[in-house]
């Protein structure tokens, strides 16, 4: 028991770091994922992984293969794309999915152009995107500060965010906060994703953001329990995935995300709002 669950984390420093990093990332990105899902923006993460390319490439052009300028560049590009898409969806009739697709494609094309100008054939994204097994002190500090900022912002804007996600027209009718809150939220999304890419890679940061949230949706319809449940699922997937990666010698990122995927599939089947239980209730209702 001890050998199986505890010893890997005691014996190896990199396992402790991997655990700390992935838990911290879950702490901040699982609640953000719940709001993203409620706003029907679940695919934002994947779009963002491409959208940051021009920023990373500009950082590379100016400073060479240095992680910090490339991350800051990526952050700027991500914010521009998210804010641009948000503004278009706020002030025109176009919905967020279409405007985000348009902005991220423009951004991606620009990025490919910049990379080709330099003519290097080193895969920039391969260098920029980290892996959970190779967290150094800076990456850990980065994730910790992102988690701090995210939790603080969520606490301050909680009520406005919930209203904005569930009934944006209501929020607009009672308060002027609607639009600013939306942009604050988009900022949080970009911060979590780009920080996550740099520290842990795309698969892990997008996966930890969306899968626990999507799984929690099958168990409850209220926002607070949904966020807490997403957090618990995220934590459990991190621990299970890392242990699986250690004992079965599987690559770590996919192992963590597949653990969350198993929880998601189980939730579809077994959750109160999932396939089986909602069928049963529906049936009873008809016969009553």
């Amino acid at each position, binding site marked *: 028991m001890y050998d199986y669950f505890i010893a890997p984390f005691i014996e190896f420093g990199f396992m402790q770091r991997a655990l700390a990093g992935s838990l911290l990332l879950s702490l901040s990105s699982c609640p953000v994922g719940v709001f993203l899902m409620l706003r029907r923006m679940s695919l934002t993460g994947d779009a963002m992984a491409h959208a940051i390319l021009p920023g990373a490439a500009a950082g590379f052009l100016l400073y060479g293969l240095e992680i910090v300028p490339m991350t800051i560049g990526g952050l700027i590009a991500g914010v521009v794309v998210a804010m641009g898409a948000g503004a278009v969806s706020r002030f025109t009739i176009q919905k967020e999915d279409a405007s985000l697709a348009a902005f991220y494609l423009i951004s991606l094309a620009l990025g490919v152009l910049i990379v080709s100008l330099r*003519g290097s054939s080193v895969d920039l994204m391969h260098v920029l995107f980290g892996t959970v*097994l190779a967290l150094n002190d800076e990456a850990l500090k980065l994730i910790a500060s992102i988690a701090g900022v995210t939790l603080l912002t969520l606490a301050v804007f909680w009520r406005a965010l919930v209203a904005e996600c569930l009934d944006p027209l209501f929020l607009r009718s009672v308060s002027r906060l609607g639009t600013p809150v939306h942009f604050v939220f988009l900022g949080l999304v970009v911060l979590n994703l780009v920080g996550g890419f740099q520290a842990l890679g795309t698969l892990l940061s997008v996966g930890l953001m969306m899968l626990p949230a999507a799984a929690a949706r099958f168990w409850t319809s209220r926002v607070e329990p949904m966020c807490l449940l997403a957090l618990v699922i995220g934590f459990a997937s991190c621990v299970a995935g890392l242990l699986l990666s250690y004992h079965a010698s599987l690559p770590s990122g996919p192992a963590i995300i597949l653990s969350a995927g198993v929880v998601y599939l189980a939730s579809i089947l077994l959750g109160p709002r999932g396939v089986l239980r909602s069928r049963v209730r529906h049936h009873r209702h008809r016969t009553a």
Partner: protein
Amino acid sequence: MQKLSRLAFALSVITLITPALPAAAEPLNVVASFSIIGDFAQNVGGDRIALTTLVGHNGDAHVYEPKPADAVVMAGADVVLVNGLHFEGFLQRLVEASATKAVVVELTKGVETLATAEEEVEHEGEATHEAEDGHDHGATDPHAFQSIANAKIYVKNIADAFCAADAAGCDAYEANAAAYTGKLEALEAEVKAAVAAIPADKRAVITSHDAFGYFQHAYGITFLAPEGVSTDAEASAADVAKLIEQVRHDKASAIFVENITNQRLIEQIASETGLKIGGTLYSDALSDANGPAPTYIDMMRNNIGAIKGAILGS
């Protein structure tokens, strides 16, 4: 005979470029897929060839995206030199798209190939490539040039290809190849002497991607790597733990980064085990002219020097 092939060459030039210049006055247009092959070709061809190298110094041929300019060069080429064994994932489609009439020469022809390290016990975790991995090498390790004996075969294949394309220069190519092979033999002796100076139980080092299978096979230094053969694979916690165990039990005594891969994993292993990073090894690409490995001979000399220095210094 010589006249006939010269005529054939002249005709092929006419079809590709414009009117009839005497064939010998035109340099042979040679395209090399990456920097190490480019260096071999330059040594064999000398000033009789016009050489273009597609993936330049410090570039990763595993993930290279060809540009239109590459297709233009390819279309005008007389000889295309590639490593083969699926090393250049991008190449086959580029050759087809450019509709080149050049002969594509696989330089690994005649090399005794090795299976990838996946089959060895200590690397068992590396078979797990990601699903979207388009650069999987399959079962054969393509990095044959890491053994100098194989490099001599590459050089011979290049000389043969040049002779077939430009018979007038054949004597010059043969002479260049012989001279260069002599240098390679001296280099091989040098590498073997350096390895002999390292105690047998210390001959194991850690690198970031498994590109040194042929070096290991030829010279008896064991390379342990947390990633697979291609730069795209992802490591598992078990691999990393195993490497750290090996260092703790004094089985591996030095750790290196490579010029084309992500260094973070190696840095993490180094800081956990207390090993100092011994320097940069050049595996799939040469450095630029100011770096420590602008040519193949410099590269091998740099690598063995770094390995020896780091092991004996530890």
